[in-house]
């Protein structure tokens, strides 16, 4: 009898407990939905994500980045804008007409595969061994099975995504801030830190050591950027059309994106998730039973 009472009390305790939990927990069940739950949800991530939007109304400063050279930057921005609409867009239009989409995707892949050292070295510099491994794995697979990088089976089959790192992010990883905002001619938004990063990265770029002349390099690089532009869905056009001041909008977006990229190592672990084939078989981390 006493056992019975004990059980009843345990059950009622559990019941009350689970109901009060349910108030904030039950909803987090994604039950039978086709979700690929990537990682367990940690409270910190959640609070960080809401940090800004819930902590009252904007005691955060409006300027996300110092911009002492705004007048010059706006001039360069204007130049890039005209370059985009009057030179690049017509070129891209013709390019799209000449080269079908799959071809352009392959060209993009080749360039992306070629600059693997930049991502690999910077992953390593940030002690991101997984990122480094990812890049080595991707390079090997895509250069061989992907026929010199034309295809990206590492991603499309094995589900191993790029570990996007550059020297600007490495500097950020070690706590260096942007310094100030810069708009570079032809290149677009950058900052003092990221510009230094871009210059540093160019020393790891294999293209530099092909013995090509500056002229040739310039052509190769413009093919690369034109290809990427042809695949992007005229995002810039949209921003110009929608925002009150495109310069301010792009500046804010740039800072937010870079901030997220720098912070990525800390909280994002969803580098591997393979939707197509059975990712477990092709994912080298799974072979060794490493938990992601």
């Amino acid at each position: 009898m006493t056992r019975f009472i004990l059980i009843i009390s345990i059950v009622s305790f559990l019941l009350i407990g689970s109901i009060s939990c349910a108030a904030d927990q039950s909803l987090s069940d994604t039950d039978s939905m086709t979700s690929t739950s990537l990682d367990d949800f940690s409270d910190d991530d959640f609070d960080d994500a809401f940090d800004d939007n819930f902590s009252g109304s904007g005691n955060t400063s409006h300027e996300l980045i110092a911009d002492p050279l705004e007048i010059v930057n706006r001039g360069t921005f204007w130049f890039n804008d005209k370059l985009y609409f009057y030179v690049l867009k017509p070129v891209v239009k013709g390019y799209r007409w000449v080269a079908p989409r799959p071809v352009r995707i392959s060209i993009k892949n080749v360039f992306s595969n070629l600059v693997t050292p930049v991502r690999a070295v910077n992953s390593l510099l940030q002690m991101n061994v997984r990122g480094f491994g990812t890049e080595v794995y991707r390079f090997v697979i895509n250069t061989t099975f992907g026929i010199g990088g034309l295809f990206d089976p590492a991603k499309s089959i094995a589900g191993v995504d790029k570990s996007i790192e550059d020297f600007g992010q490495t500097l950020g990883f070690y706590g260096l801030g942007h310094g100030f905002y810069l708009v570079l001619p032809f290149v677009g938004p950058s900052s003092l830190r990221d510009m230094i990063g871009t210059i540093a990265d160019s020393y790891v770029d294999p293209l530099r050591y092909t013995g090509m002349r500056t002229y040739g390099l310039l052509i190769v690089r413009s093919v690369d950027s034109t290809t990427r532009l042809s695949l992007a869905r005229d995002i810039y056009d949209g921003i110009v059309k929608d925002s009150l001041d495109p310069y301010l909008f792009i500046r804010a977006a740039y800072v937010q994106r870079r901030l997220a990229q720098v912070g990525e190592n800390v909280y994002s672990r969803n580098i591997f998730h393979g939707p197509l084939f059975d990712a477990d078989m092709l994912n080298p981390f799974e072979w060794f039973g490493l938990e992601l």
Partner: protein
Amino acid sequence: MKKILLSLILIVAMAVSSFALPAPQTQVEAMVNSVLSVLQRTDLTADEKKVQVSGLVQEYLNMESMARRTLGSYWEDATEEQRQQFSDLFVQVLEGTYLNRIGDYSDGSVKFLKQRVKGNKAIVDTQILTDDLEIPVQYKMIYVDGRWQVFDLVIESVSLIKNYRSSYGEIIRRKGYDGLLQLMEEKVKAMRATS
């Protein structure tokens, strides 16, 4: 005895989960699907589509909260009339933006990754998949008036509202509140003209 206890716990757990409110992810799915289904209809003209989508967007987005967060501290200082003026224009700017953008990706599919809920706040992670791109889109939601509403969109880790707050704040600082409203009016007019 252990078995009974276990089954009791199970029953309780099941009962509790069936009490769950409409989940935020379901809400986002409903929004995305209804917008896409309107866009993919062939029997409507572009204008009719816009009207329908605009109604849907207003239903799922919490415009008031978005307007307030965009203005930040300026919201507190503004008069009731100014707030109203701003909100009205903001809704139009936002709608125009949304309508212009969503069409670009209507050929893609949306994958729902996960949802996280804490109290009356939720984050739903999705991805827009096209043949060569995966664009992460995060919906931040709050629970008001008995349902989940979106108050921020985070696309490729860029929060739309944070972006608005930064640029609108800057404009107010330089041109004043009226300057901002004037710019917004011009923008809305321009959006109408091109659409």
